Each structure stands twice: as C-alpha cells, then as structure tokens.
C-alpha cells in the first residue's frame, strides 16, 4: 500500500514538474525593441492580421506593396486576412498566448477593443505617434481619437469611415408611390404604424416589416458599457425620447419608453406586420420582392448600392437624428500588440497607410493598370479583362484598410461619395459621454449573469414575439437579481470620475 501511494505521488510530481518547466520555456516574449531608429533603418517584416476577405490575387499585390514599402520605410509586410468565426477564433487566442504580430484589427464587434485593452494586450500609442505618426494624428478628427482613449491613453488607430450611427427605414419605392406614402412624415419609429397597416391591408401577401428589432436602436442614447445590449445608458441630444439629465446613467429597460416600444412591437407582431419566426432570414424574401420595409444602420451611399443589388429602387428615411457615441468610433481600428518586436516601424506603416493614397489604394484595389484604371482623381474602373463580379483583387468600398477619404471609388459610385461622408457626420449628435470607456473588471460576475438575462428576454421582447404584460416585469426583476443596480452604480461612479478629469484638462 505504501509503495503504491509513493508511486502515485512520484508520477504526479514528475508530470507537474515537466509541465511547468516546459511551458516556462515558451510563455514570455519580451518586447525588447532593438530597432535603431536613428539614421539607417534595419529591414524588418511586419506581420499584419486584418479582418478582410482573402483575395485570390493577394500574393501578387503584396509583392508590389512590399516593393513600395521597402523604399519608403525599409519594411515588408506579411498580411494575413481572415473573416467571420475564423478571425474570432484565431486572433484572440494568438493575442492571449503572445504570438508575435505587429498590427491587428480590433473593434467593438470582433476581437473586442476594450476587453483587449483591459487585458493589456496592446502597446500604448501616444508617444509612438508623436514620434512616427504625426501625419496620421492630424488626418483623423479629434472625435475619433477621443473615442479610442482609455484612461488617457490610445491603444488603436481608428478606422476613418462614417462617423456615428443613424437608424432608418428602407422601403420599396414602387409601393411607396403606389400607396402614396409620405416618407417625410416619418419622424420616429412610431410613425411607421399607419404605413405598415396600409401595406398589410392593401397587399397581405407582402411582409410589411422584416423585423422591429432594429427600430429600437433609433432611440438616441450612449450605451455606457460599449455593449449595445447591456443596461446603462445616458440621454443624447435634444430629442423627444429618453429625455433625462445628461449626467445620470439609467437602466433603459426600466423606462416607460422601452415599455411602449415592446408593447408596440407585440401589437405589430400580433397584427402580422412582422415575422413570427425566431430566426427569420429576410434576405431571400427581399430578393424575391416579398418585403416592404426594413430597418437598418445606415451608411453613406448604401441605398444606391442596395438597390443595385436587389434590382429594384428603394427609398430611405432616417428615424430621428443620428448619434456619435464611443462604441461607434470603435467600429474598427488597428492596434499594435505587446508582442510586436517593431512597434516603431508598425507605427510608420500605419502612418503611411492612412496618409499615402498610393499605398492605401494598392491595399484596396490592387495594382493600377492590372486591376483597375483611373477615370479621374477619385474614380476608377476595372482594368481590361477583369470580371467585375469576380475580380482577382478588389475590396470595393474597402473600409477595412483604414482611411476611406483617400481611397478611389468605382465609377458607378455617386459623384458626391466623399461629400456624403461629411454630410453624414454633420447630421449626427455627439454624445456628452463620447470618449468615456467603461472598465468592466469590477462587475464581471454581474455582467455574465446580466448577459444571460438579456439573451433570454431582450430578443423576443423587441421582436414582439412574446407578451410584454407577462415578460417585461420578469425581465426587469431578473435584471435586478443579476445585479443591474451594482452595474449601474459602478458605471455612474466611473463616469463621474471621468467627467471631473475632463473638466480639469
């Protein structure tokens, strides 16, 4: 018996020892930056993970890009493009295990920016930018830099595309005209009801609205946690909904406005204006022309593109004014991970990517003459022999490559494409809390429980598939049980502190 237990201990000890020793060999990777930045630059290869569709012609285009980069900053870049769950699985694990990489895509919707910052995954950029990214710093407006700031430090260069978000409705133009619908009368989601009713009565074979969920987003708020579902918002702008004091954070699900919305959504669903299925896929019905309207997060020049895609004309109407909140800014950006051995060169590269049209457009459209030819200063067309539906290399609108203002656009885009971005930005109201980033660390337990309550109640309520008389009180109660009050008060105290810092500086 004695022998037996001895052997047990021995074998376990050996194995544990082995594990620790062997894993210790691998774990740490010091980011000792051994780049002699003065005078001659040593040649380096930068590894760049971006969220983008892999293109067939990538290797060919990369050769041209590297030739160009070699001359500019004596660096080459190895770009790895991935999307969907491929990116979501690989990249966070690579960051967590300290794999060497120099630039990585981060955002509010994949490879989460805030969560990475709180796990200290990224290199702080301010001082690097002062040295190697002056042009970059000037190119991007302050609003965007503000949104990326966490505890007075910037950890990612934001994608410069449309600023802020607007919610609106897209409707079939032929039906709007046929039923003489005055789209200008639509000021908020509530004004949709008579229209949906008309459509449903006149043509029952058409689905009036492809879902009410999106419309809820038209109520202008800043989501304080950056997660659009978590409780805790403040009022934005001088608008008819959610009018509260700008300073006070509240649980949006406990408001009379939310109650009114879910009651309406339920009424619409009962009346047959919205689909009854939990996982309704609208795309097929849109293509078949069986849907009248849908709500969406608008982006400039979108209506035109979508009409072309579906093959019939559409009209678009905003639901109230848009908002610029912190999470909008975090819609995309590039960070330099801690594991990067060459953060200086990575910053030089980003500086070029955002300011040098030659480089940027190689990433977006490929090689001039081979993939595209220029029509004028801003517009291009596919080169001779390129199939526009299945090109060898072309990202089209290409927002994932940084700065849309220096890109070329296909000649089919409207002439005022770039102006549209400006108009869009000017129409949106910046949130008073723009730049506030919530640190979730103290309330992770509560958030995990709240996330579950949200995924249980939020989708069916806003889609109108369950009766709010029964489910809304349960929702509110379960949020309380999960600790929503602790979450809100933590937010409030962080917000108060942030504000006092803002006024000081």
């Amino acid at each position, binding site marked *: 018996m004695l*022998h037996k237990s001895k*052997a047990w201990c021995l074998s376990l000890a050996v*194995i*544990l020892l*082995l*594990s*620790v020793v*062997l*894993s*210790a060999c691998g*774990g*740490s990777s010091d980011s000792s930056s051994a780049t002699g930045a003065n005078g001659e630059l040593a040649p380096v290869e930068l590894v760049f993970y971006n969220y983008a569709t892999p293109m067939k012609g990538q290797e060919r285009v990369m050769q041209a890009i590297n030739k160009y980069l070699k001359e500019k900053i004596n660096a080459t870049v190895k770009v790895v493009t991935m999307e969907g769950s491929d990116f979501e699985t690989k990249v*966070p694990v690579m*960051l*967590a295990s*300290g794999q060497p990489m120099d630039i990585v895509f981060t955002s509010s919707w994949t490879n*989460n920016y805030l*969560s990475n910052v*709180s*796990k*200290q*995954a990224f290199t702080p950029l301010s001082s690097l930018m002062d040295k190697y990214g002056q042009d970059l710093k000037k190119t991007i407006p302050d609003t965007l830099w503000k949104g990326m700031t966490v505890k007075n430090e910037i950890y990612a260069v934001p994608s410069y595309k449309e600023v802020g978000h607007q919610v609106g409705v897209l409707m079939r133009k032929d039906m709007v005209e046929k039923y003489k619908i005055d789209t200008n009368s639509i000021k908020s989601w509530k004004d949709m009801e008579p229209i949906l009713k008309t459509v449903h009565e006149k043509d029952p074979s058409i689905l009036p609205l492809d879902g009410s969920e999106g419309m809820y987003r038209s109520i202008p708020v800043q989501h304080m946690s950056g*997660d659009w579902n978590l409780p805790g918002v403040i009022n934005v702008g001088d608008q008819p909904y959610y009018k509260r004091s700008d300073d006070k954070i509240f649980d949006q699900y406990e408001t009379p406005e939310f109650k009114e919305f879910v009651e309406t959504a339920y009424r619409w669903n009962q009346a047959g204006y919205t*689909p*009854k*299925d*939990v*996982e*309704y896929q609208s795309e097929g019905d849109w293509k078949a022309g069986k849907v009248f309207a849908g709500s969406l997060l608008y982006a400039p020049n979108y209506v035109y593109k979508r009409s072309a895609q579906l093959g019939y004309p559409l009209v678009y109407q905003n639901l109230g004014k848009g908002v610029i909140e912190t999470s909008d800014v975090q819609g995309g950006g590039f960070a330099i991970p*801690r594991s990067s051995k060459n953060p200086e060169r990575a910053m030089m590269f980003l500086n070029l990517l955002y300011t040098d049209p030659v480089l940027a457009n190689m990433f977006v459209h490929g090689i001039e003459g081979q993939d595209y030819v220029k029509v004028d200063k801003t517009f291009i067309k596919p080169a001779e022999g390129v199939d526009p539906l299945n090109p060898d290399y072309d990202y089209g609108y290409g927002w994932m490559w940084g700065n849309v203002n220096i890109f070329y656009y296909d000649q089919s885009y409207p002439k005022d494409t770039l102006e549209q971005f400006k108009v869009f930005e000017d129409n949106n109201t910046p949130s008073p809390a723009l730049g506030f980033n919530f640190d*979730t*660390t103290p309330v*992770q*337990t*509560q*958030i*995990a*429980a709240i*996330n*579950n*309550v949200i*995924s*249980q*109640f*939020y*989708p*069916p309520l806003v889609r109108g*598939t*369950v009766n709010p008389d029964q*489910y809304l009180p349960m929702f509110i109660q*379960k949020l309380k*049980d*999960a*600790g929503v009050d602790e979450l809100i008060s933590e937010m409030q105290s962080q917000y108060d502190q942030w504000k006092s810092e803002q006024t000081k500086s």
Partner: protein
Amino acid sequence: MTFLYELRKHGALFVMALPALILLVLFNYMPMFGVILAFKNYNFYDGILGSPWVGFDNFKYLFKGDAWLITRNTLLYNLVFIVIGLILSVALAIILDEIRSRFLSKTYQTILIMPYFLSWTIVALIFYAFLSADKGIVNQLLSYMGFHPINFYTDMTYWPYILIFVFFWKSVGYNSIIYLASVTGISPDYYEAATIDGANKWQQIRYITLPCLRPIIIIMTILSIGKIFYADFGLFYQVTYNSGALYPVTQVIDTYVYNGLVTMGNYGMTAAAGLYQSFVGFVLVILTNWIVKKVDRDSALF
C-alpha cells in the same frame, strides 16, 4: 526497488505504454498548468503565471441568478440521456444482431448512423424546417387539419420532448456500435452450449448476452457520469436557436457560460466553469468507481 523489479519483469509493457504516455504528457499534462487561470485575473502582459490571484471570484457567476434551474436542467437531461440512452443502444445492438437477414441488418446499421454525421447547425436547420411558425411542415399540417398553429420556438411545453428526441435521433445508432461490436465478440460456444441445453432465444439474451455486456455497460456508464455536468452545446444552443422564451427548459451550464461570457472573452471565468464541471464529474466518478470496485473488481475503471 519494486519499480526496478517491475521494469525488468515487464519491460516490454513499459515500452508499449511509452508512446501513449508521451502523448499524454505533451498534449494533456503540459497544458494542465492552465487550470490556475480559474483563480486568476489573466492579463497578457503578466502572463499566466504572473497575473494576479483572485481567489474564487471567477466562480461566483456560476452561482448567480438562475444557477439552480440551470444545474437542474443539465442534470436531468443528462440522467435521461444516460439511462434511456443505455437501454436504447443496448436494445438496438441486440436487435440488429439477432434479426434474421444479414443484408437488412447491415442496411439498417448504415442508415441509423447517418444522422450522427450531420453537424448541429444542419440538424437545427432541418428541425427548423419542420417546426418553424410561418413555413414549418408541422404547422402546415396542423392548419390543414383545422388546428391552431403552434409557435414552437416561443412555447416551452414541447421542448423537453423535442430535445430528447433530437438527441437520440442523432446519437443512438452511433452509440449502439460499441454494444454491437461487444455482442459480436461473445464466443459462439456459449450459445451453442445453451442451445444444446434447450434455452430459447430470450433465455439466451437474458443469461448470456446481457451478462457478457456487463463490463462494457459499466464502463460506459462511469464515463458518462464523469460528463454529467457537461451538456451538448450544439443541441441546447443551436437546435433551440438560443430562443429566450425557451430558457426555463433549455438553458444548461454550457449555454449559460457561453451567453454570459461571449462578449467579454474572460479566460479566467471560462476556466472556472470548466473546472467546476470537471470537478463535480470527477467526484462522482471516484464514488461510482469505488462502489463498482466493491461489487465487481474487474469491471472498475481503475
């Protein structure tokens, strides 16, 4: 000393075990240091070993809110899966072995394992085609016969049965393979002797087949008890389309953890959930194994 003696006596056995032991160390025991993540607030800068300790903080969310309901669901579904699954798989294996036509038996086998190869996404899609509210085949039938359509994905009454059905539909054919192989491994001499003694087919099954299957049944049961706090994520998440209205009967530990952490990506809390699930399974297995040892030493796991 005993070790050296053993080494000399059974040297070949050590060599035979060596490749497996190396694989165990490399792919299982070396990463095992990661369980400490469950007690840490992991940040990439300090690394796994250097990150600050947080005690049992990462476990707290597992006992918040609907914890009781979720644990109950996980346990009850798994009990049903283990007990009924065992009966169904063994019965199916015996039937497949006993029916007279060899050719048909093989055909049935091939067809019955087919659903196993469909991913949960596809299974979800197929059942959606039957159950969906607007276009589902079941509802088309119901309204054709003059009944009210049922919105399955918001009505939880049917889901315990639906989930149990889907689970067995997908897995029972595949799981019966183990028992089928076991049945075919029983020496024909036993049956021959029994036939000579005048035992009929039922008696043969009762007194030869089932006792011979006992060791494998015991092992399979012990192994599934170890996984009793784990639920099949695809079944409970994808087949239900994660529909909130069904949560009271469909939410299990794995979906709770997923829904809670998917936006945060907290490695410590993920590790905590895994450790909790494993630990409960481990205790139960040790207990079961101890009981089995008392009753039938040879059938025990270790």
